[in-house]
């Protein structure tokens, strides 16, 4: 009987073979739903750039090219784009200038204490940019910056030594902030390079320089180019440093322009203009996305050539070099982490900020902590906590479904899925935030009122981290031989048991570390929250800081930042412990 009914079951269409009806459909829904929303949000932006007047009707006011014409005419925007280009280029120069040699030193030289570099780099990656930017303002602001004032007094200068309230100034800070990203992106490629190919060149008579130029560089080029495109996307979309440092002084970049256009001090937001410029950005983003993918493909091809089974020979450094290198690394961390944090502590005990001195110390008080609106801080902390629990979990569910379909199935539409999951990686997050804002205000207000709710942040964060989650899971899935699942299927184990008993346990390191990583990203997220966290119901800790900061209350902002920092420390520690325990740090790419 049993056999009869089995035979009568109709043949499945060869889409996703051999899963029962329900499992297959659950997978399809889980993977296509977020992809659909991503594509919808991108499409909505393109539409908003064309609608005559979104405020009076998103579908009823007709289509026009006026907004695109206005792009040329708007001097503010023109300036902002020029600033963005300058800002991004300077940031890239700084980030690569430091990140490339540092990664090389950490991977290919015998520099002692390399482990510490990793710890410092990952911590630098996790420290919210908002904190650091605030610290830099206290240190290097032309009027109030401690270091600038100290030099003015010492040297009797009539102008400040460093002016960070400028596009180059912000670019340098952004660049320093991006060094860990470059470091962590390039590290694995240095590691994966088989020293034997270099040695072969040396043995066959190429000089050291010739080897570098003809062998090492061409081999590394795909990863370098990939890292370049990846980092420049981040630099162009950067929001926290331009917002903290530039916005109050009317120095705008792309992201801050979008921010003030969507949240103008007076009048109605000019959605059309933002839609138009965002559309232009999206086109560029997709272009770089496409380049990134094709570059990545090439680097995979090389990865096959290099293979494993060698022990990396390390380049010996002279002790003088070691001292010099560590001195530089020490200075870097002093200026990018230690001093900004210390000055935040100082600022938080000062009612009105002033440079440290004995007389100022007498004024130190916990007044800021007292004056902070604690109910708001608690609301922010609670919301941040909920987001940190919910968002990474959702990303792993959706990203896992996409990764499985892309890696394992022959589903026709998987290219589209793969692409959509990659889009949030390339399109500036502020554009996503803007798009969901428009959707919430003009399309969903009746059906799904998410404006001002925590849900809007949950949705947009989940979409934003989807690129990361999918990539981590699919790269671990690729490494898992598919026969491990197939043997289960041949033995008659149902799909859901294969998932729980075989796939999840084997993917646990990747799942755990990426979950923690995304929780940390969620905690420090500032860009999208600045656009969307509008009520007590969905304010997050960084936005509490931001609202004090933009309201001119830097002392209270510093106090809340310190509270945030105290929450962050044990979480980063947990991440490190988990990372060591499960021997995974490869996942640490934002």
């Amino acid at each position, binding site marked *: 009987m049993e056999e009869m009914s089995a*035979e009568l079951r109709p043949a499945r269409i060869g889409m996703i073979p051999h899963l029962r009806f329900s499992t297959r459909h659950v997978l399809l829904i889980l993977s296509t739903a977020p992809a659909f929303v991503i594509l919808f949000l991108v499409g909505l932006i393109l539409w908003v750039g064309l609608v005559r007047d979104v405020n009076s009707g998103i579908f009823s006011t007709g289509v026009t090219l006026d907004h695109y014409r206005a792009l040329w005419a708007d001097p503010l925007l023109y300036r902002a784009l020029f600033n963005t280009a300058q800002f991004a280029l300077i940031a890239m120069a700084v980030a690569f200038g430091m990140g490339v040699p540092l990664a090389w030193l950490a991977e290919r030289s015998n520099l002692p204490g390399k482990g510490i570099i990793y710890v410092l780099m990952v911590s630098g990656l996790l420290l919210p940019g908002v904190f650091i930017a605030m610290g830099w303002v206290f240190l290097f602001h032309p009027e109030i910056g401690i270091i600038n004032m100290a030099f003015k007094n010492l040297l009797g200068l009539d102008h400040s030594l460093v002016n960070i309230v400028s596009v180059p100034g912000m670019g340098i800070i952004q660049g320093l902030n991006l060094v860990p990203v470059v470091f962590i992106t390039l590290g694995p490629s240095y590691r994966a390079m088989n020293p034997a190919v270099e040695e072969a060149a040396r043995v066959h008579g190429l000089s050291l320089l010739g080897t570098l130029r003809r062998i090492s560089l061409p081999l590394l080029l795909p990863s370098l180019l990939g890292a370049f495109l990846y980092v420049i996307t981040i630099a162009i979309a950067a929001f926290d440093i331009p917002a903290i440092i530039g916005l109050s002084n009317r120095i705008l970049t792309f992201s801050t322009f979008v921010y003030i256009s969507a949240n103008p001090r007076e009048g109605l937001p000019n959605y059309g203009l933002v839609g138009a410029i965002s559309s232009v950005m999206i086109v560029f983003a997709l272009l770089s996305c496409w380049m990134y993918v094709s570059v990545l493909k090439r680097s995979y091809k090389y990865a096959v050539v290099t293979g494993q089974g060698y022990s990396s020979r390390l380049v010996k450094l002279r002790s003088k070099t070691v001292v010099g290198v560590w001195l530089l690394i020490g200075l870097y961390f002093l200026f990018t982490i230690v001093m900004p944090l210390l000055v935040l502590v100082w600022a938080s005990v000062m009612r009105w900020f002033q440079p440290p001195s004995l007389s100022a110390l007498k004024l130190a008080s916990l007044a800021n902590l007292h004056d902070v609106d604690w109910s708001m801080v608690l609301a922010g902390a609670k919301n941040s906590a909920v987001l940190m629990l919910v968002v990474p979990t959702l990303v792993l569910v959706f990203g896992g479904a996409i990764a499985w379909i892309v890696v394992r199935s022959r589903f026709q539409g998987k290219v589209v899925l793969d692409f959509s999951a990659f889009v949030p990686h390339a399109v500036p997050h502020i554009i996503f935030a803007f798009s969901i804002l428009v959707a919430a205000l003009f399309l969903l207000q009746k059906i799904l009122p998410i404006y001002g709710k925590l849900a809007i942040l949950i949705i947009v964060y989940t979409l934003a981290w989807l690129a990361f989650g999918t990539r981590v899971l699919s790269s671990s899935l690729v490494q898992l031989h598919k026969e491990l699942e*197939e043997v289960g299927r*041949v033995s008659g184990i*149902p799909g859901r048991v294969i998932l729980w*008993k075989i796939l999840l346990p084997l993917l646990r390191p990747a799942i755990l570390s990426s979950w923690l990583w995304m929780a940390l990203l969620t905690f420090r997220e500032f860009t999208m929250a600045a656009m969307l966290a509008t009520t007590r119901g969905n304010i997050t800790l960084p936005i509490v800081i931001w609202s004090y900061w933009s309201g001119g209350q830097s002392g209270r902002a510093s106090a809340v930042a310190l509270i945030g920092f105290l929450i962050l420390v044990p979480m980063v520690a947990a991440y490190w412990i988990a990372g060591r325990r499960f021997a995974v740090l490869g996942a640490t790419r934002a």
Partner: protein
Amino acid sequence: MIEIRGVSKIFNVGTRQVQPLRNVTLEVREGEFFVLLGPSGSGKSTLLRCVSGLEEPDEGEISLDGRVVFSKSKRIALDPADRGIGMVFQSYAIWPHLSVLDNVTLPLIRGKRRMPRRLAVEKGREVLKLVQMDALMDRPASLLSGGQQQRVAVARALSIEPKVLLMDEPLSNLDARLREEVREEIKNLTRQIGITVLYITHDQIEAMALASRIAVLANGEVKQVSLPREVYKKPASHEVATLLGTMNWLSGRVIRDGLVETPIGEVRIGTQGLGNDDEILLGIRLEHLCVASSAAAGENEFPAEVISQTFLGDQIWYHLRVGPTRMVWKTFHDIDLPKTVYARLPKEKILVFAGR
């Protein structure tokens, strides 16, 4: 026991189409150790995966134990789990996060059978004993050597008491020494329990050693199905002959019945019934050449020059120049040859194939 009728498979790779199987028809009888031999890329794995149900053919029908498990025309495609098969994968696919015993019992407990744990453990112990792995039952599977993993994979495949055992190059990940040992174990074990085996390999020695029958697959087509001896002695084509070991080749043209003109001179062959002027290909296995230091004035004897020799321990390969071509003579005796020798091609050992 296994019937494969007219099975074809096409993969779409981007815009390109790859056809690893073209109208394959095979029958494996009950209790047989059937070996599919073919070069890599010939479609062996694809065929096995079609039998197991991990892949769906685009054309054809497959039956196992008299039951149709796949049929394009009848729209039948049974789940792998419903086919009553055990499978050993090339990578072994041992679940590294489980113990040896759990690797075997997981399919019993959570698979179709849903055995109670106690019975599953008993069964697991039993099959692990069969492959002499019962002593390492509680080891984490990730700590096993290649050979041990292979045994566990076999035990896992047998634990569900399949009607048919499918094996995809199960020895290719082992080192040469171990390979021979495990090969004999597999042979004895499968004979002992009398299971039908469909076994894949690209190694002709492995195929010869194990098979009760061999099917030679090339370019997704079955080229020959025969007893191992027969495949070796009477390969159906030039292609099959090459697959079964290195050979000396001569192209030629038939002058008259039994006489062929070749680059090294006229060669007499035993094959009858060829038309005059037919283009043909003559092959002779390395060990079938007869080489002597003096001429015996026999049939098909040609002067040759020794170019070099390769010492392989139990055998020696002499590289000869015979006329304008090169030939290799394989011998098991270490002898001193003069520079000039005489090579004889015994008429009855020459294989004749249609030329290109």
